[in-house]
């Protein structure tokens, strides 16, 4: 009776019947199911959003840091910026003695230079922006990043702090609508600066990082630093492998001349590490919350499936007495709860794909380290929620299915509903 083709056909027909049995069950309980579906969708939404945004942030940070910092390490006075409580005390700036001490003790580095970093309000005609301002020394202004691509560099008088000059990155010039040929005057923190030239944007950085203003260190020193102090100390080296050596040399010499906990170091490596840990935290919290939601949805699915199978026990008993296998009923229950999980997951993922850019924009204001939170639609964000929710649905169906397995046919036939 059973040619392979006939057997295959039979199996296919069985599958169709299984699906239709599942469908019937779901349809007859559609209102309750759609509510449970929503809880599952919320969990899956949270999970996939965590991945989309987390990955996006990770990639973003990586790009920014890598391009912006290069092989530099900057020592800044004060304690680490993330210890907010300690930061309220007075900013203990570096002294020129600190600087010479460090410079004398650090051998084999390309460059040790004072630097100034701040953000200041910038005005040109009717345009107002807050922009990053870098104060660079003569040596630093010869670095490729600070070489003008249009116009000229600083004059000697500018370097000596006698006249106030500045360079704009391309983006900054565009943002302020400055045409360099006229050597116009912009206002930084209310003071007039003559725009001498335009430099390239920091490669790969986003809009906020791109728009920067460079001033001679001397001007910054006069205008924004207390007299007799140094802003930051910048150390550059050529060989990337030497970073540990440079950092430990810098740290030990600063500890000798200033004492511990009076400075912090930042470099591409540190920033990436710190940012990574921020993103890792974000993702961990996100995942925990999402799994929590899925846990609740799991209980919901189990609950619905239990009441559902109890409600349908008479129908199941009838089917079994009409020749259905227990295993068929069991499979219908399992596939129903699995489908619940999967469809919840799909709805959640679809919502998350739609809403991730907007949520990213909302979150962006909360995470300082990330300047533009664009979602990254990686495979993980799609696969994990579907996997987790599908599994949750399947497992949630196990206990109801086990109840069906032990179904007392005669007793269930009796309860008329």
């Amino acid at each position, binding site marked *: 009776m059973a040619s392979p083709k006939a057997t295959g056909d039979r199996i296919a027909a069985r599958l169709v*019947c299984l699906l*239709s*049995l599942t469908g*019937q069950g779901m349809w007859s309980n559609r209102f309750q199911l759609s509510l449970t579906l929503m809880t599952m969708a919320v969990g899956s939404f949270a999970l996939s959003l965590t991945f989309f945004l987390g990955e996006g942030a990770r990639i973003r940070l990586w790009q920014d840091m890598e391009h912006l910092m290069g092989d530099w390490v900057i020592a800044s006075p004060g304690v680490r910026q993330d210890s907010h409580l300690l930061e309220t005390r007075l900013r203990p700036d570096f002294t020129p003695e600190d600087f010479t001490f460090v410079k004398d003790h650090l051998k084999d580095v390309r460059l040790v230079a004072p630097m100034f970093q701040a953000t200041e309000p910038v005005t040109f005609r009717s345009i107002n922006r807050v922009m990053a301002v870098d104060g660079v020394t003569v040596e630093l202004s010869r670095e490729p990043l600070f070489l003008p691509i249009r116009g000229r560099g600083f004059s000697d008088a500018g370097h000596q702090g006698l006249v106030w000059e500045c360079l704009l990155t391309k983006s900054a010039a565009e943002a302020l609508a400055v045409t360099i040929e006229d050597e116009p005057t912009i206002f930084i923190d209310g003071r007039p600066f003559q725009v001498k030239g335009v430099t390239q944007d920091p490669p790969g950085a986003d809009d906020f990082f791109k728009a920067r203003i460079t001033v001679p260190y001397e001007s910054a020193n006069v205008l924004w630093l207390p007299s007799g102090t140094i802003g930051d100390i910048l150390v550059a080296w050529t060989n990337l492998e030497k970073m540990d050596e440079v950092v430990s040399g810098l740290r030990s010499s600063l500890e000798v001349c200033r004492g511990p906990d009076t400075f912090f170091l930042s470099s591409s490596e540190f920033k990436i590490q710190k940012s990574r840990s921020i993103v890792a935290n974000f993702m961990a919290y996100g995942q925990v919350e999402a799994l929590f939601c899925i846990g609740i949805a799991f209980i919901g699915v189990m609950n619905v499936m239990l009441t559902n199978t109890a409600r349908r026990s008479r129908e199941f008993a*009838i089917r*079994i007495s*009409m*020749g*259905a296998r227990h295993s068929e009923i069991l499979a219908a229950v399992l596939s129903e709860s699995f489908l619940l999980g999967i469809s919840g997951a799909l709805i959640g993922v679809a919502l998350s794909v739609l809403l991730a850019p907007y949520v990213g924009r909302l979150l962006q204001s909360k995470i300082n380290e990330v300047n533009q939170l664009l979602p990254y639609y990686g495979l993980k964000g799609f696969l994990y929620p579907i996997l987790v929710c599908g599994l949750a649905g399947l497992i949630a169906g196990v206990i109801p299915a086990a109840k069906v397995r032990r179904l007392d*046919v005669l007793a269930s036939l009796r309860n008329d509903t």
Partner: protein
Amino acid sequence: MSGGSNDTQPFISLRGVHKSWRAGGTRIDVLRHIDLDIRAGTSTVIVGPSGSGKSTLVHVLALLTPIDSGEYLFNGSSVYAVNRWWDVGIRQSIGIVFQDGKLIQNLTALQNVCVPVSHRGIWPRQQKKLAKRALAQVGLLDRLDSYPNQLSGGELIRCAIARALVTEPVLILADEPTGTLDSETGSTISDLLFGVVKEQRTLVVVSHNPLLAERADRVVSIRDGILDEV
């Protein structure tokens, strides 16, 4: 399944079958070491007072409940030999009409009749064809899309009979098919059931209805768990 054309051995035979129910702390012995042989293609009516175990006997025959002791031979082989009472193969060759029809409430008449064939690896289109044929046999073609609560008592039983017939089983069990019906409807049902037997099927009916008892090849009574020929 051969339908049991072999005349030397009975199609169904119960040997010393004992079945008891446990209700609370007490044990009710419903079937006491019953022996029963039913030949293929015959019709048997079982009578007995309420609570005497008629339905229980039907459920045992339909393999819906295990027995305590004894042996059940179906077409010559023991149903309980290797845990076979779970074997859907045998259950699938039996059609059963329950005491009150027992249709699935949220399915239409057509869908209800499709249920047995839907569990036998048959495509839905073919299921519907078979179901329509069975419904035509019981004269319910005009009520395909009615739900059970839209059917009269007689129609319900006819629908249940169609559901039992749809798989063309070798054995049909019917538990009080005319129980609550008026005599006219009862005779329609009895016409149906005994019309069915003509097609080489074995029929076992539980009934108080003299109409049915008259037309049966054999009447058996059950009282206090003991079987007697009438």
